[in-house]
Structure formats: structure tokens, C-alpha cells
């Protein structure tokens, strides 16, 4: 069976509608939200700031600490029990690894940059949305950054390579699926997050990564505009 049509007639290489805004949490040093389809992620950055407990401090550079959390009412089914899960801890870890390469924390020994990602609503692609939001929030916080980090899921649904899998595609039952979240530094062209659920051939994987590259460039433009709009100079894409 072939995968013929996506929901809302979306193109195979098209993302769901995206909305991004920077400076949405006044208490934070930097903040942003990133919405893709129904998936909605807020990110707040606090730091560089004092780090307790002391044994976590690194005398050579600041550390980055990420926490990804789904709000109890954000899941598509039952309530999500607060307090995190093994899944959210893993996502926190890969998020940190996705963001670290663009940061230079040598200026801030013994301190911490905390990134808190909260999702009020999720519908597939939440870790990527979190990374996109966090990346804008880090820039908003004035940290030295070589590039932004843009992220999106790509993959294969049955016989088609797709960009930005939605919930129905992640759980597609009529054929095989590969779900591949990718985070990239769009201008430097390097990948900082790569995971995969499902099955795919190496050839298809690299085709999918090319699609990810293109999609991330578009997402970078959205993030760039959101940052500039904070100062009233964006293009209001």
C-alpha cells in the first residue's frame, strides 16, 4: 500500500504551520515559544547563574542544564503524571547535547545556564519543537552562540519520505515507519541531534537528512524573524 495523502493535504516535504515568538516570559533571562501544528513548546533560560550543589560546578566553564517537561494536560490521551518520566529525562539529555555545540560557556566558569522547556500541548515532534524554542531563548538571553539550532523530524511513512511527522504518521499502522528527529546548526551545516525509531535503508536515511537540511533552513528563517521581531525589526513572516 502506498501512502497517498497527508492530513490537511500537506505536501510530503512541508511542515505543519509554524508560529514563533521571543521574549514571552519576562522573569526569564531569555525566553521563546515555538508552535508547529498543535505541538507547542515554551522555553525559558536562566543564567549564567550560581550553581548548587557545588560538586556540579566545573572550574573551566559553565555547564548547560536542560529540563524537558510535558504539562499534565498536554498529552493527546490521558493526563500525564507530573514529575517527569524516563522518556522526558532522555529528551532532556539529547536536548542538552543538541544545544551545547553552538554555545561557548568558557566565559562562565563554575556557573550554570538553565534551560527549562515546558509543553502545554503536544501532537508529535515535541522534542524538536522544544529545541527550536530553547535555541531562540538562549539567543534572547544574550549568550555567545555560533549559530542557532533548528530541529524537525523527518522520516519515511510507508513508501514516502516525509518532513515533520504528525501523530497519525508516527503511529501509522498500515505500513512501516521511520521517525527521525534531527537538530541542525543550519548555517554551519552540522547535525547535533539524531535519533531514529523504526526501520530505514541507509540510502533513504541520507535522502531524509537532505530534506531535514532544507526544512531546518526554513525553520531558521522563522527563528531569525522571531528574534528580530522582538526588537520591532523582523519581517513579520
Amino acid at each position, binding site marked *: 500500500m502506498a501512502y497517498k495523502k497527508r492530513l490537511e493535504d500537506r505536501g510530503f516535504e512541508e511542515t505543519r504551520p509554524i508560529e514563533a515568538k521571543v521574549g514571552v*516570559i*519576562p*522573569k*526569564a533571562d531569555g525566553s521563546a515559544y515555538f508552535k508547529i501544528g498543535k505541538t507547542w513548546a515554551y522555553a525559558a533560560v536562566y543564567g549564567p*547563574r550560581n550553581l548548587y550543589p557545588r560538586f556540579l560546578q566545573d572550574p573551566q566553564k559553565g555547564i548547560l542544564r536542560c529540563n524537558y517537561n510535558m504539562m*499534565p*494536560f498536554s498529552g493527546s490521551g*490521558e493526563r500525564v503524571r507530573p514529575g517527569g518520566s524516563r522518556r522526558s529525562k532522555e529528551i532532556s539529555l539529547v536536548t542538552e547535547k543538541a544545544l551545547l555545540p553552538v554555545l561557548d560557556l568558557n566565559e562562565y566558569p563554575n556557573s550554570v545556564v538553565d534551560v*527549562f522547556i515546558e509543553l*502545554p500541548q503536544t501532537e508529535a515532534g515535541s522534542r524538536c519543537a522544544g529545541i527550536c524554542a530553547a535555541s531562540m531563548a538562549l539567543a534572547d538571553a544574550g549568550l555567545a552562540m555560533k549559530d542557532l539550532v533548528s530541529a524537525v523530524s523527518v522520516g519515511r511513512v510507508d513508501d514516502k519520505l516525509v518532513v515533520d511527522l504528525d501523530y497519525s504518521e508516527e503511529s501509522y499502522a498500515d505500513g512501516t515507519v521511520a521517525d527521525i528527529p534531527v537538530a541542525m546548526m543550519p548555517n554551519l551545516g552540522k547535525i547535533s541531534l539524531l535519533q531514529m525509531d523504526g526501520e530505514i535503508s541507509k540510502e533513504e536515511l541520507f535522502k531524509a537528512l537532505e530534506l531535514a537540511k532544507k526544512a531546518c533552513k526554513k525553520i531558521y528563517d522563522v527563528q531569525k524573524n522571531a528574534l528580530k521581531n522582538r526588537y520591532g525589526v523582523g519581517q513579520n513572516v
Partner: protein
Amino acid sequence: MGLDKMYKNLHNHIVKLLKAGTRLDGRRLEEYRKPITVEYDIIKTAEGSARVKIGETDVMVGVKMEVGTPYPDVPDEGTIIVGAELLPLSNPEFELGPPGIQAIELARVVDRGIRESKAIDFKKLCIEKGKKVWLLLIDICPINDAGNLIEASSLAALAALKSARFPKYDEKAEKIDYKEKTSKKIELTKEPIAVNVIKIDNYLFVDPITEEEKVIDARLSVSSERDGTLCALQKGGDAPLTIDEISKMIDIAVEKGKELRGVL
């Protein structure tokens, strides 16, 4: 004692301003921040939801519904369960971890306001007496805490309940289809509104911002109904209150409750 000293300058200055009838941001003592906004049904994955902003304080509340067994002493009643998490996202002083006493107090004050006012007829939440009832799980998530979380949260909780619709429930299969909402709503019979009245030195005021919250002497949270009936009281802060002060604070809370109810 140490904490008192760390904020002594702030405390003295706020008292000086209160004497002059004003506050750090230029408001009068009985004035709320502006704007106060309520957005309904903002979270599509929740059965009910709302977002309330009072000035820069920004809170989201979601209602999820589950089917569970009733308490043995009230076999024909469903119930509400209110949770609050002081998300570190919303305030640099909040830490990661299980809800501390501040979060617990917040959840319980909001719970009591709804429960004790009997705003919801719990008997209407009964599906099968003794066996199955609807549980309304209300979760409070601050996005930005610029002070007065209790009020923003209780307003948002009420708005979320107002907007909530039951999901489709297959009684035979005992399964909830969260993807399909029915048109059945919760039917609130009352609208209890919580108001915090703050005392610093000899002055009473409402809608505290973060700096004011750091130096309060006492606080009285009062939930009241439309006709002025009180349905929840909570005193906070270290300093005691005289009966006269309590009476004044209750009057202020009931009056302000009426104003806030209008915003809903």
C-alpha cells in the same frame, strides 16, 4: 531573621510608599495590574483549559477528565483533584523537584474555593453509583510568576471548568475517547473568586507583585461567591491579624471578587 535583613530596605521603602497612598509601580492600594485577560479553551489536548494574565503574571490551567471509583462514603459523587506545580520556567527562584509547600498550599486553596462553594454538583459526576464516577483533574501551570499566583490560578481554574466539555465515554467498553468531545459541560452553579488581601505594616492592599510578596507581614486569601458568601479562607504570613483587620480584609476581598468575576 536573616531574611528580614536582606529585604529591610525594600520593606522600609514600600511602607514609605504605602503611607503616601502608592506602591512600587505607582498603583493605588486597591488597584489591580492591567490588563487582566482570560482566554478560554486554549489547550486542545485538555477537556477544558484557560489562561489568565494579571499584568505580567501568566498562568495556564488545564482540566483532564478520568473515570474512577468513588470514595466509599460518597458512592454517588465524583470529585475534583487540584494539582499545582511551581514550574522553574516561570520564576528564577523556583527549583526543579516535587511540589513544595508553596505549590501544595496554592493547589489546596484553589481546591477549597471550588469544593466548599459547591460550584460543581458532584452528584452530577456520577456514572454508576458505587462503581464509576468522573474525576476532574485540574492542573495549574504558571508560565510567568510576577506575583499573586493564587488569584490568577483560581480565576484560570474557574474559567477552565467553565470551558470544559466531557469526552466521549463508552460505558460498555469502559473506555474514554479523548479525541472526541461531547457538548456536555460541567454546569457551574457558583463562581467562587479568590482574592488575596495583603497587609504590610498597617496598610492593606491587593494584587501583590513579586517584590511586595517578599516583605508581606500577613496575607488573607478569601474566596467568595457572587452574593458575598465566603467559601474559603486562608491566612498566610508571619504576623498576626486583629479581628478588625480581618473584617476589613474580607470586605475588600468580596468587593474585588465582584470586579474579577466581571472579567470572566
